């Protein structure tokens, strides 16, 4: 029912185009049902405001009923870059540019008729991850959550520092409500970004920790 409309093949250049308002051709190519963006602004006594955002695209699962031996690469390479572009454009608009992005994350939730691997296919390859990382000017691996779910789920999307993943101050998650998605035959794909650390980060870092091993269990004081 939600199959993309048949379109004659065409080549377009998305590299310098904003898809914030102009995305109908991309939407139709991937059968996009809806796209949303949430932006949370929290006043902070030192940092001014910490802005955290998610962008979510809901599309029909291109592999419904194809079985577990189906090669996922062809549709992944066709769809994942478009999702990365749509979502990155919204995160950059929400935070005010890549220079404002300090932490990032991603997620995919496949509807109940799909396979977990279908969700993973759209976020765990370079066709999504490299494009998102480049757009947000990061270098770290992008942390994630994935799963299978029903419409109306609430996800907690993890984020960490975009260029120094082990930076403890930036370990954070953003709660995301997905009204009316994903339907059984759909996949919701999500990207997230934060302009800062946790509001009152104060649990040290790898550089400040002393060496800790199980040796400490030998001298526990109760």
């Amino acid at each position, binding site marked *: *029912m939600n199959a993309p409309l048949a379109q004659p093949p065409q080549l377009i250049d998305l590299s310098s185009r904003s898809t914030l308002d102009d995305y109908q051709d991309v939407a139709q190519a991937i059968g996009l*049902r809806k796209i*949303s963006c949430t932006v*949370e602004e929290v006043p902070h006594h030192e940092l001014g405001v910490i802005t955290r955002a998610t962008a979510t695209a809901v599309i029909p699962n291109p592999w419904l009923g194809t079985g577990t031996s189906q090669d996922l690469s062809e549709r992944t390479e066709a769809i994942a870059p478009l999702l990365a572009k749509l979502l990155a454009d919204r995160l950059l608009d929400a935070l005010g540019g890549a220079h404002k992005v300090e932490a990032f994350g991603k997620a995919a939730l496949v509807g109940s008729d799909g396979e977990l691997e279908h969700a993973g296919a759209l976020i765990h390859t370079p066709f999504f991850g490299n494009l998102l990382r480049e757009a947000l000017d990061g270098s770290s691996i992008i942390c994630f959550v994935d799963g299978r779910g029903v419409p109306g789920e609430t996800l907690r999307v993890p984020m960490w520092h975009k260029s120094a993943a082990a930076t403890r101050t930036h370990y954070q998650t*953003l709660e995301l*409500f997905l*009204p009316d998605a994903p339907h059984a035959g759909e996949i919701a794909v999500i990207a997230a970004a934060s302009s800062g650390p946790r509001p009152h980060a104060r649990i040290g870092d790898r550089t400040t920790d002393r060496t800790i091993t199980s040796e400490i269990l030998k001298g526990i004081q109760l």
Partner: protein
Amino acid sequence: MNYRKLVTIVEEIATEGGRVVDPVARVAIVAAVIENPWAGQGFVQDLNPGIDAVASDLGALLAPRVIEALGAPLEAYGKAAIVGLDGEIEHGSALIHTLKFGNHFRDAANATTLLPAVEKRGPAGVQFDIPLKHFTDATIRSHHQSVEVKIADAPHAGEILIALAGATRGRPQERLAALSTEQ
């Protein structure tokens, strides 16, 4: 205007019923989480001082943000007040059911009708639906719609969550006969 957090949500529907929605149906919601002005005061008979202190500033904070987030002319709108568990629903109603609050949105949107509303009490993360109706004629059936919202970690027991919502058009595939055809 002090708030704990401000949340902006923009949702666009590009396909509905298996058919393309053109132009896309865009809805914007902006929610502010504030302290309940009457927290810890027991039953307050006269709510007017609290309304005067907060309602207008709240409308002035939220209304332009909805217009900006929508990014296109507004055709339908609505509002919400979600009161934390230690407050009265009347506290939420007090903040949104005054012209001091609503006129900011009407003026910003060139609107004339009353804003449909949801008022409820709930724990942090409670889900609510904001009803929206046409901005100049509340009988225009194509624009009757609602949007689902859930704000993480709000409202706390001593807080109130106030939201405004706007839409660029009626329902994505609206095709019901007008009210006038039944009269």
